[in-house]
């Protein structure tokens, strides 16, 4: 059990180590990378079934007892996130064998990719707030390296914007952690959760909450600190953009959900409205930003921001249904958004460009691609019976039940605008007649130099089909996924259960006597 508990950390760590040893041997790196991704997925599924059956799984690293050592805790929510991380790792590891694989692997794609997965998996499984900070940084440094993999001018520029804004977010996180330690004298999340309601200086605790909200918000790209995302994501190579779109912002969302249900749950009256307003502003700015763009990658980047808003609704309302809706939405969004980025890469290979004005007629030449695009695109917009419909349904219904009518209304209308953006891509890239051969090249959007081989085509299409099938499955056979989300939400709202799982009941009594 102890080995299974750390498997999501150990597997990517070893994969990063081994692929770094074989730095200049892509032929060795690739099978190892794919095998590690599959192992990660397998162990995460095993963890999910264990956490579902027996509740939160806890391990104390190095055998140091709970508030003193670093705790690894995997509850249903963490396990769901780990499974989806494993799934994305497999999909992107296959997709990365497509066009451009040789250049990417020579630049060090594999070690950086697995370091990124390590950071993400670590953030999902830790029960210690300083450890969370460390995993965030592991993820961040790996993402820096991945973003500027090709070292083009465009990437360096986008990378600088991304790096500078994230550095500031990092500092805010560190500040929040330092002050939280000053207030509670502990870094263990469960221990902090136990002490938080009893702290005399609740004002200082609220200030820490705001600092952490800024820090996580910067990672999650919420309003008004989202600018780095559309400035950087579209410059990355497509597999990198897909894994970023799937996981990076979601780690920020995960941290917000985890910390605000655990530590600041007693202060919902203060944080609820703040997060609610942020959620609405995020939804609206994201969708309007997307409406004004004509590059597939940038439209998709802005839609990430808009969707983050939906995920925050659960934390704003703090009802079981709302949080379950958020969890479901995160899962749905990761699958759909990663798939759309993967498809954007294929559109570029098949159609030659990312710019919508230069694309066209793909429906005639590539009907399969059109069909594969429609599934995640309509799911993103929230059309039944696809997965996005159920996510939006849960979030909006929770809003109506909590009488947050404005929030629910904004969520509804943003869904319509999302549909508009997706139809724009559909019309321009697939439906309209192919434009006459365009003249001149544009920075960052030159057509690919060589046609792709059959193997590369298979590597690109297989993950897209698998993810589209998954989207359909979640949409048509929703019940088990909804039940999982409900279980995750109940676990998140059961603070006492989390605290007892980490600290243990007898230990708890012993500790309460010894607080200074």
């Amino acid at each position, binding site marked *: 059990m*102890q*080995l299974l*508990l*750390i498997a999501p950390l*150990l597997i990517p*760590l*070893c994969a*990063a*180590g*081994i*692929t*770094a*040893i*074989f*730095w*200049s041997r892509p032929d060795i790196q690739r099978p190892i990378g794919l095998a590690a991704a599959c192992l990660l997925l397998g162990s995460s599924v095993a963890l999910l079934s264990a956490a579902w059956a027996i509740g939160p799984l806890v*391990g*104390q*690293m*190095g*055998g140091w007892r709970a508030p003193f050592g670093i705790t690894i805790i995997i509850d249903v929510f963490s396990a769901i996130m780990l499974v989806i991380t494993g799934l994305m790792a497999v999909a992107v590891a296959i997709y990365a064998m497509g066009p451009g694989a040789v250049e990417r692997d020579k630049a*060090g794609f594999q*070690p950086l990719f697995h370091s990124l997965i390590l950071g993400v998996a670590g953030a999902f499984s830790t029960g210690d707030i300083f450890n969370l900070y460390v995993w965030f940084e592991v993820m961040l440094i790996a993402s820096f390296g991945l973003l500027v993999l090709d070292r083009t001018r465009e990437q360096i520029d986008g990378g600088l914007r991304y790096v500078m804004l994230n550095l500031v977010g990092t500092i805010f996180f560190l500040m929040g952690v330092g002050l939280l330690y000053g207030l509670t004298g502990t870094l263990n999340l469960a221990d902090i959760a136990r002490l938080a309601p009893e702290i005399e200086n609740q004002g200082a605790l609220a200030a820490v909450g705001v600092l952490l909200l800024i820090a996580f918000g910067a990672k999650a790209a919420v309003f008004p600190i989202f600018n780095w995302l559309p400035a950087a994501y579209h410059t990355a190579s497509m597999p990198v953009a897909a894994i970023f779109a799937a996981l990076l912002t979601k780690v920020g969302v995960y941290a917000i959900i985890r910390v605000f249900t655990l530590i600041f749950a007693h202060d919902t009256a203060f944080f609820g409205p703040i997060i609610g307003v942020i959620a609405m502003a995020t939804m609206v700015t994201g969708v309007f930003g997307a409406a004004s763009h004509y590059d597939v990658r940038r439209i998709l980047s802005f839609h990430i921001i808009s969707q983050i808003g939906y995920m925050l609704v659960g934390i704003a309302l703090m009802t079981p249904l709302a949080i379950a809706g958020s969890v479901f939405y995160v899962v749905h969004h990761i699958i759909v958004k990663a798939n759309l980025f993967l498809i954007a890469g294929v559109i570029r290979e098949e159609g030659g460009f990312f710019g919508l004005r230069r694309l066209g007629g793909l429906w005639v030449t590539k009907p399969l691609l059109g069909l594969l695009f429609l599934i995640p695109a309509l799911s993103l917009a929230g059309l039944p019976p696809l997965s996005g419909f159920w996510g939006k349904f849960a979030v909006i219904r929770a809003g109506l039940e909590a009488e947050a009518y404005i929030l629910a209304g904004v969520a509804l209308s943003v869904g319509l605008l999302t549909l508009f953006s997706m139809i724009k891509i559909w019309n321009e890239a697939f439906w309209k007649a192919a434009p006459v051969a365009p003249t001149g090249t544009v920075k960052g959007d030159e057509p690919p130099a060589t046609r792709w081989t059959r193997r590369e085509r298979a590597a690109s299409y297989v993950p897209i089909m698998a993810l589209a099938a998954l989207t359909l499955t979640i949409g048509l056979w929703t019940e088990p996924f909804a039940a999982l989300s409900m279980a995750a939400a109940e676990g998140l709202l059961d603070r006492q259960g989390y605290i007892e799982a980490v600290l243990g009941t007898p230990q708890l009594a012993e500790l309460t006597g010894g607080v200074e």
Partner: protein
Amino acid sequence: MNGVMKSSLILRTMAPLVLWLALPVSIIVLIQGHNNPGGGFVGGLVAAAGVIFYALGRGPEAARVIMRVPPATLCGAGILLAALSGLPALLDPSAAFLTHLWWMTDYGLGTALIFDIGVYLTVVGTATAIFLALIRG
């Protein structure tokens, strides 16, 4: 190479001497980390400083040659070693990952030393990689 100034005769001559002085010192620092200030991180920095001094004196290419393996490989080996040092603890099913085992306590021999060697290699790899990339551009 074009960005590097031609170094002086003294620097060129001293470079190997400093390197061969830094390496044993770094190992001593690594091993005494068991009970005294020191350890893999500091030891790794000392060793990396030696390599960097060598690169300043003889140029980054010469430093790459004397390192024999690419910095990334050192880094990867270090990470792997540190990760694997936690595994022997799992032979005892109730123990947690990274619970360190000691074989000869007096000399500080145990899985913690393996972990420290891993840290040492990672730090040497990372620090030299950063520096060599900076002076080459």
